[in-house]
């Protein structure tokens, strides 16, 4: 039996049961924390497709969360109420921007790619802060939220928790399926030996660009859901530190593994919550903790949960 599948199934079973269990112990306030972790996990899973499988280290991925969130928020402000229309809008805008920046960034590899995605991410961030009509630096509070054909199931008082959980499940399942498909194998071949993959006749740049756009689309959806949950949007969600957090989640969880990004995202949110409840200046501990984890825990969290025989999944 594949242990990573069992662990994944357990995580999702727990998440499904939480809205019932938490009120029993009087801890409903943790729902917000779980939603925060799930939204981070969706974006981290998408980032793992390009970092873990594609070997493209992007340090600007949070910008796509921002683009998705702002596309949705601006749509809402212009009177679009239907979440499906907003979803379409989010996908078109995020996909378009990812296609352009991806095509340019993929002219380079390695550390150049990292710097360029960082620069493009920062460009998007500054563009968002200069949207004076939509709150600029301070962000925008949304007074009306999206509905699903008039039903509030996609809002906090409805079933937004389960909608986000469903999207998380689809991303987790979808990215795993992609990584196991022929497309995923070409992506890994391009990561491990680009020349050989090229010689075998695969247009690797095209594969990488498609992966980059898919990852951006998923991140954009998490931005849309973030707007629905927070009922507020500000450029800070696209700041480069958020991209750093996503990389932390992916690497700490375990690169290119089924549950890595999921575990990493929950780990970060839980550690942040625990540390900040102990000490206000929790970053003084979190920063060195990251350094120590990099230096001494190489395979990520997924490694600790996987028997040696199944390593590398």
């Amino acid at each position, binding site marked *: 039996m594949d242990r990573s599948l069992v662990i994944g199934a357990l995580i999702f079973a727990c998440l499904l049961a939480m809205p019932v269990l938490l009120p029993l112990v009087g801890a409903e306030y943790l729902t917000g924390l779980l939603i925060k972790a799930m939204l981070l996990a969706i974006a981290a899973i998408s980032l793992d497709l390009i970092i873990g499988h594609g070997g493209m280290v992007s340090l600007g991925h949070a910008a796509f969360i921002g683009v998705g969130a702002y596309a949705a928020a601006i749509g809402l402000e212009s009177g679009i109420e239907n979440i499906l229309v907003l979803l379409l809008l989010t996908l078109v805008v995020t996909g378009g921007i990812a296609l352009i920046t991806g095509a*340019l960034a993929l002219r380079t590899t390695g*550390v150049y790619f990292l710097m360029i995605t960082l*620069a493009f991410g*920062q*460009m998007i961030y500054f563009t968002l802060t200069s949207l004076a009509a939509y709150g600029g630096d301070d962000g925008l509070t949304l007074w009306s939220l999206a509905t699903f054909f008039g039903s509030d199931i996609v809002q906090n008082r409805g079933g937004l928790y389960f909608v986000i959980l469903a999207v998380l499940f689809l991303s987790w399942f979808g990215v795993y399926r992609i990584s196991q498909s022929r497309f995923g194998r070409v992506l890994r071949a391009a990561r491990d030996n680009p020349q050989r993959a090229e010689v075998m006749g695969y247009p690797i740049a095209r594969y990488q660009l498609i992966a980059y756009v898919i990852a951006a689309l998923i991140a954009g959806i998490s931005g849309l859901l973030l707007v629905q949950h927070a009922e507020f949007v500000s450029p800070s969600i696209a700041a480069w530190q958020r991209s750093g957090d996503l990389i932390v989640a992916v690497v700490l969880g375990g*690169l290119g593994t089924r549950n890595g990004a999921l575990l990493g995202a929950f780990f970060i949110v839980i550690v942040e919550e625990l540390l900040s409840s102990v000490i206000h200046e929790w*970053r003084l501990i*979190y920063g*060195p903790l990251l*350094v120590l984890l990099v230096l001494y825990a190489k395979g990520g969290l997924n490694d600790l949960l996987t028997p040696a025989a199944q390593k590398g999944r």
Partner: protein
Amino acid sequence: MSLTLFLILCLNGLQYGLLLFLIAAGLTLVFGVMGFINLAHGVQYMVGAYLIFAFTGLTGHFGLALVLSLVTALLIGLLLEYVVFRHLYDRTHLDQVLATFGIIIFLNELAKVLFGPTTLSIATPEFLSGSIQLTEQLRYPVYRLVTIGVGLVVAAGLFLTISYTRTGMLIRAGSTTPEMVAALGVNIKQLFRIVFGVGAMLAGFAGVIAAPIFAIEPGMGDNILIVAFVVIIIGGVGSIGGAFVAAILVGLIDTLGRSLATELLSFVFNPSMANQIGPALASMLIYILMAAILVIRPKGLLPAKGVH
């Protein structure tokens, strides 16, 4: 727009460009020689600014504080190298990014704890305050002129060191084939340490001279780090000459763009439209420049030879 304003903007742009060069130089050398991507380089800039703030407060003398700040910045750089970075040289770029990201989080928070979250400022040193008459209508602050001069001197010194001294020769050789240099009996780790320390000190120096001009605040190094990355991409990784040309280019375009974009756009669009697009476009200009240069020359304007 008057010619005077244009000249002032050009001088400001030149000054910003030289500041960027001081930061980008260390970053590009460290990457070129060691293949090490150091996100925490921008933090050294912040450290420099806080050090000069603390030491001018303690000593009350800018010159003395300057020397103390540079020495301390060097020591902090070497300490970080000893404690963390030297363990990362043969790791993947991803590990390097992660660990240096952790250091940024730590030092930004430390600055907040020690000096408070609000912005601080220090006065321009007495003997450099005031302004001088450049042309009939143009007065320019002495301090800014001096920083331009100092920036140019440091740039020239760096260029001469890299091109004509033995250490510079070893640095160039080390960036192409570190194994061969080590095999010839050169202590490559020592060389790394020198490059790293000097890079950290240069970034700290940039922070010191920026302190009287810009606000001192936690996280001030993060944004300038990203602009330094843009400079390196435009100039070509590992190339000091490229970093210099690109830094001046970026400094000028950014400064001119921010002041002139709205005005230029109002020729094409109506004023309210121009007011909306102008600032957004201005902040995007350097990234557009970067994208354009990437399309034409993916390796940058003046790429270093043989960089991995």
